[in-house]
């Protein structure tokens, strides 16, 4: 597992898995979209609009997952002085931001016909909007320091502080009355979704995950190269 903390080991593994990951993501997207549009049934209430969920839910999950991994890498980088954590956070923040944006836009498109509004300021939607703003702040902080050593530490601390938002996003629908529905799929109970609709959801989640990993590999490799060239 050295490649998760060591830049040169990471480069070796990345060269090896990049193409398979990219091909896998393309295959999964083709399969997932086929399932989403043609091989899954209409919902009993929402009709065809339910298909927006197959983009909305995976992107929401991955927006949260990306931030959670960034939090872990911040702890690694700050406590154990592992520079790869800083490299990872700089490279991956825009990917998380894009996932959050996809989640917000697709949710908005779903909300208009289903709820009757594009946007409301309930706890779930507001906390996801804050997650997006946190991602943007991380990106802008990464662009705005002269001194790289200082910048990395400040950003990592900011990521740690911002991680308080993750449980708020996740549990907002349970803690408060919200317009957004509570979680359909949780580990503790049988999901209240039919298997014919769960299949495209899971395929799309893995497709999003793989495209995320592929872009992350490219960005991390670029970041490693640019650091090496700025050092020499």
């Amino acid at each position, binding site marked *: 597992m050295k490649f998760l903390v060591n830049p040169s080991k990471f480069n070796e593994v990345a060269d090896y898995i990049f193409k398979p990951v990219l091909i896998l993501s393309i295959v999964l997207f083709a399969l997932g979209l086929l399932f989403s549009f043609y091989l899954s049934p*209409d919902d009993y209430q*929402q009709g065809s609009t339910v298909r927006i969920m197959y983009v909305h839910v995976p992107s929401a999950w991955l927006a949260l997952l990306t931030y959670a991994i960034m939090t872990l890498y911040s*702890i690694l980088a700050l406590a154990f002085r592992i520079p790869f954590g800083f490299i990872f956070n700089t490279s991956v923040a825009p990917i998380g931001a894009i996932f959050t944006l996809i989640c917000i836009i697709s949710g908005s498109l779903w909300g208009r016909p289903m709820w*009757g509004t594009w946007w409301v300021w309930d706890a779930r939607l507001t906390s996801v909007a804050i997650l997006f703003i946190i991602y943007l702040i991380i990106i802008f902080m990464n662009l705005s320091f002269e001194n790289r050593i200082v910048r990395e530490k400040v950003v990592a601390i900011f990521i*740690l502080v911002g991680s*308080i938002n993750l449980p708020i996003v996740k549990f907002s629908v349970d803690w408060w009355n919200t*317009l957004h529905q509570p979680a359909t799929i949780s580990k503790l109970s049988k999901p209240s979704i*039919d298997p014919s609709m769960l299949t495209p959801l899971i395929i799309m989640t893995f497709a999003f995950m793989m495209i995320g990993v592929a872009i992350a590999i490219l960005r991390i490799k670029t970041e490693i190269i640019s650091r090496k060239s700025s050092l020499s």
Partner: protein
Amino acid sequence: MSLRFQRLLLILFTLIIIFSAVLLILYNTRENVSYFYTPSEINKSDIKINKIIRIGGFVENDSFKKISSSSFEFRITDEKASILVTFNGILPDLFREGQGAVIEGMFVNNDVFNANDVFAKHDENYMPASIKEGLKDTGYWNKKYK
């Protein structure tokens, strides 16, 4: 104690402090964070007339009345209390009896709530339309789903 372990402890300790601070704030402001009141919460509290609030619950069965083409009357319930709502405007697609809804507006007197906006609330259940028909045929259809 090694230096890295000290740093790790410092980080975890700071995180715990920040988390508890934010959670305490949110816990103590939960009534303002909640997007709507339920009818039984309204009955317990003294909500002022002519103040814009949101109430949420289910549209009571057999309570929906169409007064004119764009004017409606229905009751919102949480199975403990219910509130009479009047509304002028366009209802969302998902709106029907038995369905969750959130209503923004104000009490015009102690009993009648006048809505400015009606949002349908979707539940966490997803089910193919064909299964609904099957359930109805065999009589296993849960009436609450509508």
